[in-house]
């Protein structure tokens, strides 16, 4: 018994394994570009007070085109111009990345928590658990997503928490379907049978034995979904159902200034490029990860 245990190589510490999986990214150029874009925006969000040339909500000089100098006492340049009430667009985009990068991951994590729980229970328990959970998921999925958001937000009102709840409610069923499919396959494995023989509780088997082995496809899906959630937050802001002003929010910035696009195109074009680049980063990373996972 002791000899067998000695033969099993020791697992490396968790941090080292995570670092090594980042090195794996280098196998795919697409994934590297995607990760680069994401890291760029994360750094922008983290160091916003240092990077942004002006405070995001300060009204300085209205309707200046890009590269205009600021005549005020502090000086400086409006690299991307100013908006209709004189706020610096570059600073608002930088601070806006904080909004997106706080709300989108939290909403995605909430949706995953609910979706994984539903999926694991439906897949592992089967029977009427599966019937009921699958029926509920199908019901929610048969709603066009944005119709669902518009109705929920219009009924309960627009606020950060409500946006999180709406996104969780609408995305969890999709995650549940994926997890359920994976669990249906994994629960026939020997290590699950071994755990059952040991007399582990079903909660333990579901969360400790099965779930970690389903992580591959889920990580790819999480990247894609983070992109959708980013778009959703943008769309809600764009439709006027997002976070209340004056919070700098990319979708909201576009909504406020799009009617002036004929005369002042820079006001809405730059936030559009910002949100598109972030979503592009997430999608490229997802595509690269899928490529790498197929290679193995």
């Amino acid at each position, binding site marked *: 018994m002791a000899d067998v245990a000695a033969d099993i190589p020791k697992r490396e510490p968790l941090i080292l394994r995570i670092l090594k999986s980042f090195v794996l990214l280098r196998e795919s150029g697409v994934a590297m570009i995607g990760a680069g874009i994401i890291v760029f925006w994360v750094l922008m969000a983290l160091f916003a007070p240092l990077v942004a040339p002006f405070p995001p909500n300060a009204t300085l000089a209205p309707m200046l085109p890009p590269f205009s100098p600021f005549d005020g006492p502090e000086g400086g340049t409006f690299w991307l111009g100013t908006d209709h009430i004189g706020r610096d667009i570059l600073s608002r985009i930088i601070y806006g990345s904080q909004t997106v990068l706080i709300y989108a991951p939290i909403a995605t994590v909430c949706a995953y928590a609910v979706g994984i729980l539903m999926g694991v229970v439906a897949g592992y328990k089967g029977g009427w658990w599966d019937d009921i959970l699958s029926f509920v998921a199908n019901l929610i999925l048969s709603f066009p997503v944005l119709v669902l958001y*518009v109705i929920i937000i219009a009924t309960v009102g627009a606020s950060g928490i409500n946006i999180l709840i709406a996104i969780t409610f609408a995305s969890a069923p999709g995650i549940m379907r994926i997890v359920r499919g994976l669990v249906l396959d994994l629960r026939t494995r020997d290590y699950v049978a071994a755990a059952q023989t040991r007399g582990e509780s079903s909660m333990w088997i579901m969360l400790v034995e099965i779930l970690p082995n389903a992580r591959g496809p889920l990580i790819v899906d999480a990247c894609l979904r983070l992109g959708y959630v980013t778009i959703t937050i*943008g769309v809600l802001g764009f439709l006027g159902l997002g976070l209340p002003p004056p919070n700098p929010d990319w979708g909201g910035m576009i909504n406020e200034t799009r009617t002036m696009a004929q005369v002042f195109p820079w006001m809405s*074009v730059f936030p559009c490029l910002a949100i598109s680049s972030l979503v592009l980063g*997430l*999608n490229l990373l997802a595509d690269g990860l899928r490529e790498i996972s197929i290679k193995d």
Partner: protein
Amino acid sequence: MLVFLARRLAYMALTMLVLSLIVFLVLEFSPGSIATKVLGPYSSEEQRAIWLEENGYNEPLFVRYFDWLGGFVTGDLGESIKYKVPVNDILWDRLANTGILGLATFLVMIPLSLTLGVLAGMKEGSFQDRSISVVGIVFTSVPEFASAVLLSTIFVFGLGLLPGTSGMTDGFNFVELILPVMVLVLYDFGYVARMTRASMAEVMTTHYIRTAVLKGLPYRVVIMKHALRNALIAPFTVIMLQINWLLSGVIVVEFFFAYKGFGALLLEASLAQDIYVIEACAMVAVFVAVSTQTLADIGYTYLNPRIRFS
């Protein structure tokens, strides 16, 4: 096949019924505020109470639900609070406009995405495949509202080629449809192309394709006669389910281009808490979504002989 059809339709009816109950419950959440919406913020407490009584809001919830459902089934959708006309008078015109928009989008998107998907999937991993995939990803990453802003900055304000709004104020105008359709196609085609590519790539690895190539058939015949028929089954389902996504995209695009369609109506109604219009729109959206899913299921079964004959 008949049993399957009957089961599918029964399931669809059940889904519609449960969803109608949910829509009803969510929207009837606060009858007090409905009275305020209809009578205005300066109405007195008594006036609101009388209005609620007259319109049957003091009946038990399930009585009102069946009232509403009964009216719905017989074609009485209630009256719009904002426009003060029956919902029937507004809804169908708007729906027809959205139908035109959706049809135009599909007419452009389906040939484009299927062609690109097949071209990419023919030679998996080739330069052609990678470049089509990356282009697809780039376009899918630009949200509809962003591409609407970017495209109108280029084509409307920059080049002055196209009109920036699609209100169709002087009758139907084809030119006003170009930008909305372009925005919807650009966002959606990447996904359908990617699904087609996956399906095509899978078919290309099968034995019967290898046999066809080895017996010396020209490559074009192998693709056109043998591979395509199997490779296009999966995209059919994807395209049908895409209608669900299109309904979402339509809200953004109609809002942006001031197109008088169903999505814009739903958004206006939601912002104005115009409850009967929201209910009618939500049920129409659900009906479209559920019936296309049913059609996709039935079509998939029909198209795939391996399922049809088993």
